[in-house]
């Protein structure tokens, strides 16, 4: 049904383009001087035909299910689990219901079918009315020989502007979805317990119904959500990753920018950048199945106990993943240091490495720091490597051979599979997500500012 309506609208759009164009040409034969090319009258009619109808159609399809649900459930105030009841009604209506058929379900499904018919019919009527109304309006305008091009351009400009608003909408969506659940979470769990508590065991919060938590249970839950071990684990793994990525990335960047021949640069730069294009789940697989066991056997031969899900393996592989981010950014930054600075240094007798160490790097330092900050924000937001290679237990440890857990791992672990909404456990994932969002936002903001300032200095 819906695809039929959409198809009809689109076909009307297309035909109204040709209709508008030929109408405009007719005007020309009557020796009227057009104010725009005939094609613009076609576009004008087509836009007026399609846009209002499509907007109404889209909004209607989006809100129809919810409105019908509310309308039906209002008739059955005595039902307790409303969502389940409604789902049963729907599946009964569609003829694939298995289970006990109650009278309420039958009644609701009859109600549903009548509302559905009303909804379908009124949808068709309203869309048809919109189509006819807007088409007549546009047709009259064409007959008056309006400035079709200007009008089309105004409509298009509004369209362009709306699509650029999607970015703002996404940000609002992220903030709303994170805040909404986090506020519910912090209304049951003390925010200071969350930030400063040192024991993380959300599996204790297996509560079916958040409204049914007794005060004793709530008191007991208070210290189940101390996220310090997660923050510490995240920072620790990011630190290991940076210990790998910063030296290798920085030296690669320097080498590629200052020493490598054009040919070596041409081949080695894309190879290093492959590392950034490999999906993180591949790194996770490699870390979990190859690097982890390798460290374990290596540790055993040295007489050390290494967990097979060690922070070291996860951090090391994450570091490898980050190398290209640091190397290509610092390569760019070093390349944009003016040649005159280097030449000045050579002129007073410095070797190439002395020039790099004493002149180029200090000049490029803000840019390099910016690239490192961006890399840190990638490291703390990285998910799959730590989910697959770091552990699940929240240990507060600084031994890289033990397993630790991170913010992202816990979000995935909490939300994987079926989750009941409205339990403190699920809300905790959103609270962690909010923390992550804020942390990366701050890091990115500082990094972008630093890089921008630096660029302005030499451009």
């Amino acid at each position, binding site marked *: 049904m819906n695809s039929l309506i959409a198809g009809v609208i689109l076909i009307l759009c297309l035909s109204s383009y040709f209709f508008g164009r030929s109408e405009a040409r007719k005007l020309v034969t009557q020796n009227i001087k057009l104010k725009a090319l005939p094609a613009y009258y076609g576009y004008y009619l087509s836009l007026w035909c399609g846009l209002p109808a499509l907007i109404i159609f889209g909004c209607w399809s989006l809100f129809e299910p919810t409105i019908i649900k509310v309308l039906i459930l209002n008739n059955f105030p005595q039902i307790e689990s409303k969502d389940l009841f409604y789902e049963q009604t729907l599946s009964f209506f569609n003829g694939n219901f298995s289970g006990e058929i109650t009278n309420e379900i039958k009644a609701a499904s009859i109600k549903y079918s009548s509302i559905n018919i009303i909804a379908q019919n009124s949808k068709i009527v309203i869309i048809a009315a919109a189509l006819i109304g807007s088409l007549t309006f546009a047709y009259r305008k064409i007959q008056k020989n309006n400035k079709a*091009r200007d009008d089309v*351009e105004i409509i*298009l*400009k509004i369209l*362009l*502007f709306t699509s*650029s*608003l*999607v*970015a*703002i909408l*996404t*940000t609002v*969506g*992220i903030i*709303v*979805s*994170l805040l909404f*659940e986090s506020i519910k979470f912090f209304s049951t769990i003390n925010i200071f317990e969350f930030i400063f508590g040192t024991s993380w065991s959300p599996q204790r919060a297996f509560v079916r119904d958040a409204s049914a938590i007794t005060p004793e249970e709530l008191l007991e839950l208070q210290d189940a959500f101390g996220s310090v071990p997660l923050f510490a684990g995240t920072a620790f793994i990011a630190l290991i990753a940076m210990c790998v990525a910063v030296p*290798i990335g920085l*030296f690669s960047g320097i*080498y*590629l920018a200052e*020493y490598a021949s054009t040919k070596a640069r041409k081949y*080695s730069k894309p*190879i*290093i950048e492959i*590392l950034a*294009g*490999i*999906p993180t*789940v*591949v790194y996770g*697989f490699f870390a979990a*199945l190859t690097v982890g066991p390798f460290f374990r056997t290596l540790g055993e031969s040295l007489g050390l106990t290494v967990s097979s899900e060690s922070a070291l393996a996860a951090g090391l592989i994450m570091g*490898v993943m980050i190398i290209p981010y640091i*190397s290509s950014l610092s390569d760019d930054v070093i390349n944009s240091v003016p040649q005159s600075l280097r030449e000045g240094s050579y002129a007073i007798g410095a*070797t190439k*490495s002395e020039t790099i160490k004493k002149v180029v790097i200090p000049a490029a330092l803000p840019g390099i720091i910016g690239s490192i900050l961006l890399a840190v*924000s*990638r490291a*703390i*937001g990285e*998910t*799959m490597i730590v989910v*697959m290679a770091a552990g699940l237990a929240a240990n507060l440890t600084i031994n890289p051979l033990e397993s630790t857990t991170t913010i*992202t791992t816990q*979000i*995935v672990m909490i*939300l*994987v*599979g079926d989750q009941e909404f409205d339990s403190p456990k699920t809300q905790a*994932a*959103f609270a962690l*997500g909010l923390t*992550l*969002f804020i942390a*990366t*936002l701050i890091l*990115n903001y500082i990094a972008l500012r630093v890089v921008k300032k630096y660029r302005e200095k030499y451009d």
Partner: protein
Amino acid sequence: MTKEQRLKKRYRAEKRFKMYGLISVSLAVIFVLILVQNIFSKGSSAFSRTMIEVEVNYDSSLLELDSPINQNSLKDADFYDLAVESLLKIYPAKDSKEERQILRLFSPDFEFEIKDFLIKNPNKIDQVVPVKITASDDIDQLNKGNFPRDLPEDRRRVSNYQLNIYDNLIEKEKINKKFNNYLFTKGDSRDPELAGIGGSLMGSFFTIIICLVLSFPIAIMASIYLEEFAPKNKITDFIEININNLAAVPSIVYGLLGLGILLSVMEFPRSTPLVAGITLSLMTLPRIIIPCRASLKAVPPSIREAALSVGASKFQTVFHHVVPLAMPGTLSGTIIGLAQALGETAPLILIGMVAFVVDIPSSPVDPSASLPVQVYLWSEQAERGFVEKTSATIMMLLGFLIVMNFIAVYLRQKFEKKWN
């Protein structure tokens, strides 16, 4: 220290410094090679499948058919007894325990394979015909040399008795390998020898198509607006800051967005490519807008001025001249953005694409997995067979990514005009 000594020291430092750089670059390159080599060596064996040839006696009395023999009655028939009867003949068994071990040499789907053979060749009824049946994962791995045979029996998955049968079958040349078409045509399964990426391939395909349809037009329109029409004011600045920040938000946050808004508020169907596509398109949008704007910016102002000077309107200038010239750059930016979306896992896990789906999805609203999620799911499995399947999936995924990136580079090099 004399002057010469100091100079020598400085030159040594110079050499050392250069060496550090060279070592770093080589380390990065070596790591790429190790990773690729590791995946390929693990995954290449997944493309073949071990088959055991068995003489099957298609005895129609065992099928208990009450209607005349035709395709439909064969489809409904129960082939289990017939299959077991023929399979047990491959080697003498003392007791029911050994019989069970014999059956465990084959994949659990043996009765269907025997049935399918007869449906394809209905004239073979009441004849004894050699049929090739998929071996179980253990035999498959043994045949590929992934299971060491010299371990004590209790640490092996294959018993001594099964090993004897295996050697006997090898001697009679009854065991051979064929190309593993199951890998591409089957959906997920708990048995590694029957598991395939058909379902996740379709899931990824639908997801990427939806992502492309949603993000490409919006990204181009947004970047045209910001680059060509936007007045310099607070709103424009705010949009720009938003786009730059969104491009750096961790992908898992988009998963939370999809879960919190698309699934729980708007009640879209869970685990489907539709939700995955919408979520990923929100994530990809800023990542496409940034290269699109860069390529619009790269079109020199003289083009615009020339068009305007012959009387084109601002819109005509942009849509007839600037956008076509920027197209190679925008397309290659879009393809690279889509390649990133194709490899994305974490947001898909949050919107429930980790469900165990056997059926191959036929539309974007069917539950399904996607390639990277399949990698994650299989990597959690213990069986050795899944390791090679996972590696093979990664090979496919990397193959797609390489092709996409290659197209992007080609578009840019071939069609992009060099100004200056």
